[in-house]
């Protein structure tokens, strides 16, 4: 032990090369994957967004920023952006708040709470496709459960997926249900990791119920809530499966989000307009980055990391 201070610097210098080399060696696989599957497609997308396409979708000639300026002046694209924003709002806010309410309720010592907790986490196990198909059955205009229930109270029928006033909300409800399981799981884990002595102390001070939730539980869940908000936002901006299965962007484009628009331009209806689709994909990337940056810049300041 006493000899250690003498040998350390020399060994350190010799090791630094080795350590750096080792670090790079460890990083290399993920770096290769990153460049191959993220870097190259990103570069390729930006390249494609500046080119017109031939009949088969291959880039044919350079058009500069034309696709971007076309998007900026397109009323259709503005509508797509608004739809995307609404869809994000309709899925993130109810998804996170709903899970929070459920988790707080589950804190009560009621019989079978463990069973309930598992039950609420269950949607996590559903694939997007199967959940969407189940909801499509609920929403079916002729034989769906929802219109069946409505008819008992003398209402409806409502075209959940076929009426442009309801379609976006219907798809959002489906998405909220799908996300709920994961959100409940994350928040349950968060509550479980709140130190018992803090809750104990609050209870000794006479706090319980709402007061305990407002002053202790929710603030202590800050990091989890923040994480969920960021992840749900990114998820919402990239939702595709449920839109594709439930509405295909319709009716009248009322559920056409940015991702769906990218798909339509590139692959649907024999369009092969990879230039415009790529430009939209770049816009999507910018939107996702901007949302994430704002959330980190504004929301995270208010998060208390224990």
């Amino acid at each position, binding site marked *: 032990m006493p000899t250690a201070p003498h040998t350390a610097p020399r060994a350190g210098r010799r090791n630094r090369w080795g350590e750096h080399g080792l670090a790079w060696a460890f990083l290399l696989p993920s770096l290769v994957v*990153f460049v191959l*599957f*993220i870097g*190259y*497609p*990103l570069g*390729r*997308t930006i390249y*494609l967004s500046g080119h*017109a*396409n*031939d*009949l*088969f*979708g*291959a*880039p*044919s000639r350079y058009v500069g920023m034309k696709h971007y300026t076309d998007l900026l002046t397109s009323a*259709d694209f503005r509508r797509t952006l608004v739809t995307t924003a609404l869809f994000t709002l309709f899925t993130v806010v109810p998804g996170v708040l709903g899970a929070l309410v459920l988790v707080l309720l589950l804190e009560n010592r009621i019989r079978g709470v463990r069973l309930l907790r598992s039950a609420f986490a269950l949607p996590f196990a559903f694939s997007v496709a199967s959940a969407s198909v189940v909801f499509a059955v609920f929403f*079916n*205009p*002729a*034989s769906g459960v929802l219109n069946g229930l409505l*008819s008992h109270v*003398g209402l409806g*029928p409502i*075209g959940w997926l076929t*009426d*442009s*006033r309801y379609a976006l909300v219907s798809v959002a409800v489906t998405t909220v249900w799908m996300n709920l399981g994961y959100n409940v799981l994350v928040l349950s884990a968060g509550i479980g990791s709140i130190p018992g002595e803090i809750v104990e102390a609050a209870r000794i001070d006479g706090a319980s119920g709402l007061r305990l939730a407002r002053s202790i539980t929710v603030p202590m869940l800050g990091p989890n809530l923040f*994480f969920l908000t*960021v992840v749900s936002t*990114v998820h919402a901006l*990239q939702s595709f499966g449920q839109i594709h299965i439930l509405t*295909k962007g*319709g*009716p*009248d*484009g009322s559920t056409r989000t940015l*991702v769906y628009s*990218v798909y339509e331009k*590139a692959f*649907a*209806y*024999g*369009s*092969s*307009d*990879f230039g415009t*689709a*790529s430009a939209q*994909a*770049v816009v*999507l*990337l910018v939107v*996702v*980055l901007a949302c*994430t940056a704002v959330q*980190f810049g504004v929301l*995270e300041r208010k998060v208390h990391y224990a």
Partner: protein
Amino acid sequence: MNKSARALAALLVAGLSLTACSSSGDSGSGSGGSNDAAAPGAQALDQASGVTGVEFWHSMTGKNAEVLTGLVNQFNAAHQGKIEIKPQFQGKYDELVTKYKAAVQQKGTPALVQVYDIGTRFMIDSKQTVPAQAFADKDAFSLDDLDANIRNYYSVGGKLQSMPFNSSMPLLYLNTDAFKEAGLDPAQAPKDLDELGELAKKLTKKDADGKTVRYGFGAAIYGWFVEQLLAESGTMYCDNDNGRSNKAGKVVFDSAQGARIVQWWADLVKGGYAANTGRTTDDAQAAFKAGTVAMHLESTGVLRGYTEAAKFGVGTAAFPKVTAADQGGPVIGGASLWISGPGHSDAEKRAAWEFEKFLTAPEQQAAWHTGTGYFPVNKKSLDDPKDKEWVAKYPQFQTAIDQLKATKPTPATAGCLLGVMPQARKGVETAIEQTIAGSKPAQQALADAAKELQPAIESYNSSVG
């Protein structure tokens, strides 16, 4: 660290959204040399050594795929050691065309490909195929057995471009029990839109609470029906005689006739006389099969499924005209088979042609017709004893036969030949939705759809020169 790691994670997830658009390859379109478009003679197969494999892309599923596989096996068995057709399901018609485009870029097209009717202009412009006419001329093979209307659809400049295979037509389907219940005679089917609208009102049934238990009319919001109604009224869908006399430069579906059709449809929905099940044809079919819709538009291809599933009498009638005075008829839809030129050996092309001839022979078309409900493309198939037996068993199909016989081939009934036809169809569907939602009157919605489509048409036409 934690923070930047999460930011990185967010970036990664965001990046994934971009990968979907990057699947197109570098290479441009393979240009078809003059030799590629020539049809080889029968000696190409005789000179070939070993088994000539033919990759065959198709979009058939379920029962249709079963019957197709049976026909392929029959052909392969008859040409053992010489030709092997290798069928590959490539998704729905739209998806197949998307994959075909990628295959052209990668210079790996299948030797034989099934493409839907509205992909015809694109397939010609792709310059990747050998016209069926070239083979027929080489062999002095008569195409006269093909139904005139079907042949008309796939012919451009008087030359048959591809071999029709699975053809279908729209019919008006009736729930005859609903007719009888309402005191109506199902034999007196509506002949035009006004009659159809009047009957829809009579056939709509409400329960004691005022809830609609059966709609008079219901069809999927499917642009194909509007194309059919326009053809019935003898109206063009796109300019230059539906793109038949010259390449179409614009769509003209925003005509008075077009507006009349779309407005009629929307008014029935808004009045509560027609069910709106959206664009999904499956949902519209389910509504008819469940008996919640009394009159319904669908293809002949679903007839057999309906008669098997429905717990009520299924009747068929001729697809409606727009007005009683209309002289047109339906456009024959479905898909045809294209033989690839560039990148394929003469033996492959020849083998694909042999298979096409086999598939469209009277016997095979009769088997196809009776097995699937598609209309036989070969006129002689209807004289086949097995086919006659089938039509006797399903007399509803006689409607389709009569309907096609009564249709004179004209540019209107040949259907619009347009490179961006799938997008045009989608535009009309959006216009119907807008009119139903009341956000625009039909005329305006169609005019907007046409306007929105114009850049796509121009960009398509400029890219094919």
